[in-house]
């Protein structure tokens, strides 16, 4: 087939904007299907007609189907979609920033930093409801920035951010913050330790509508901060100096992206705990379809992440029904083998 024909297609035929719209449209279709499935299944065993009645507003105000569908399942679906999208975009941002396909909020220890922030906030009595959610996110954000900054400083002590150094630094920072969380909880209220460990695996839970609004606004803000700089992030792959020679202000770009990725991570951690590997699995799978262009990858990963986490959460709350697993367990079972696979496939010698 040769590259020539493909080349014509890429350069003359399909414009990237159309490719983006088509891919996003297809993924939104998938998302709708997964959301519908998620709405109809669950430990409450509602009949499909009952769910339809509730969604169309024909159920009695305090009927079981109305409470379960609109009060539990729908908000939870919204949280899973927002969280998955945010984590996938954070992954895209960290990968572009560090030029490392394995970089991801949990792997880099940024999630642990954010989780530490959340625990500190809870010690001060803040909870994920309404306006307090904003305070909780602020603490998580501070923790995320400290953790990401620490990883960056440790890894850049050597010249350049070498792949293994960066990952090791991330693991170490993650371990440190997990230990700090355990100490804090033990000092304050040792009875809560089990609950915290459950939360530390990442757990999608329905939140109040006010908190959901905060979550949505911050997630969309973080997404636009990353997506609007996608073209510059592509150029950054050339290296800081070459990017500067093309007119990209590399330092500003890196700072803004860093803050945006930390914000996305912190928001998710504040509401759902440190869910791992979404930022690794989703961008990596989607690159097979849209290539490496961040302009396509960021929006596509936003929708793809929503699908992934929603599907994972649907599995998490049905697979051991009537009990449920933290969604982080599902993403870790998918993500850990995936991580090894990507690590190994990177190890092959360059042609």
């Amino acid at each position, binding site marked *: 087939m*040769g*590259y*020539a024909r*493909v*080349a014509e*297609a*890429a*350069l*003359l035929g399909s*414009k*990237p*904007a159309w490719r983006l719209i088509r891919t996003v449209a297809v993924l939104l279709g998938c998302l709708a299907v997964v959301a519908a499935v998620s709405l109809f299944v669950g430990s409450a065993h509602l009949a499909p007609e009952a769910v339809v009645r509730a969604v169309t507003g024909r159920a009695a105000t305090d009927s079981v189907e109305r409470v379960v569908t609109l009060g539990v399942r729908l908000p939870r679906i919204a949280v899973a979609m927002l969280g998955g999208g945010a984590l996938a975009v954070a992954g895209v941002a960290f990968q572009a920033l560090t*030029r490392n*396909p394995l970089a991801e909020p949990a792997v880099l220890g940024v999630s642990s930093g954010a989780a530490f922030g959340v625990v500190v906030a809870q010690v001060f009595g803040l909870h994920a409801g309404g306006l307090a959610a904003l305070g909780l996110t602020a603490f998580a954000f501070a923790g995320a920035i400290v953790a990401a900054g620490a990883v960056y400083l440790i890894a850049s002590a050597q010249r350049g951010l070498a792949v293994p150094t960066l990952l090791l630094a991330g693991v170490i920072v993650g371990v440190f913050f997990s230990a700090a969380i355990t100490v804090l909880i033990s000092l304050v209220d040792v009875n809560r330790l089990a609950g915290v460990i459950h939360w530390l695996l990442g757990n999608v839970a329905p939140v109040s509508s006010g908190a959901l609004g905060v979550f949505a606004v911050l997630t969309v803000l973080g997404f636009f901060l990353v997506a*609007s700089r*996608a*073209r*510059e992030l*592509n*150029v950054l*792959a*050339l*290296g800081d*100096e*070459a990017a*500067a*020679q*093309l*007119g*990209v*202000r590399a330092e500003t770009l890196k700072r803004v992206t860093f803050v945006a990725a930390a914000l996305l991570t912190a928001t998710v951690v504040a509401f759902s705990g440190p869910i791992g590997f979404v930022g690794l699995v989703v961008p990596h799978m989607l690159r097979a379809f849209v*290539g*490496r*262009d961040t*302009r396509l990858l960021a929006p596509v990963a936003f929708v793809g992440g929503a699908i992934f986490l929603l599907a994972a959460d649907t599995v998490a709350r049905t697979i051991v029904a009537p009990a449920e697993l933290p969604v982080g367990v599902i993403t870790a079972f998918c993500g850990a083998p995936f991580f090894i696979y990507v690590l190994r496939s*990177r190890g092959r010698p*360059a*042609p």
Partner: protein
Amino acid sequence: MTGRDAPIAELRAVTFTYPMVSTRPTPFRLADVSLDVRRGELLGVIGPNSAGKTTLIRVLSGVVRATAGDVLLEGRPIDGFSSTEIARRIAVVPQALPLDFPFTVAELVLMGRYPHAPERFFESAEDQQIARETMATTGVLELCDAPLERLSGGERQRAVIARALAQRPRLLVLDEPMAHLDLRHQAETAALLLRLSREHGISIVLVSHDLTLAGELSDRILLLAEGRLVRVGPPETVLDADVLERAFGCPVIVERPDPTGRPTVRVAWDGRRTGATGPGGR
């Protein structure tokens, strides 16, 4: 001189030192260098390691500011240009791409259009057309959807040059473009540079460790040593055994195969100097 008549780039008594990293005094990386890059010329830059060649490129392309002295583009101080304005005039071909650079040739080349419309999210049809033209110029159009990781060294080099040309620069700066190329690819790159200089009127600054090659291609050669300008002029005057020996600190043999040809330079391996008079001297 300003505008069209001014040299494309000009250094006036430029000194550059890297910020102090330790208590020991840092050496000058460029000391009092004055130079003009004329329109359409091919200027070779030679000198031993750490002579300041790469620093010269960084100062010229505006990624670092001169500690003292003035850098002018088209007769105006470089400080008055935004980074995209500089990138529309000067394109730099670095020594190497990052090893795991994950894009296709077309994606790389289109990055060269960034400084022309940084506010645009996707490149325009005109950008695509220009990218296609520059890929055709360097002979990588048929590779345009190939990932760079799969290309040979020569192909990668031509893709990077196509990216630089997509910037539509008036000055093209290349840092050791032949370093990792075999003979055929060296010859192809050399032919390409000559064509760009002669037919497209682009000024070229070519940093090279291959003195013979620099002599072959260049209209003028700049010899740097320890951050200082040792000599600048036509290859015949700069490629002089005495001058080179002092700059590089090793015995060299300069030969002129015939009176009109360009000099060739090689190292006298055994330390014996057989003179600069030609092949008869051996």
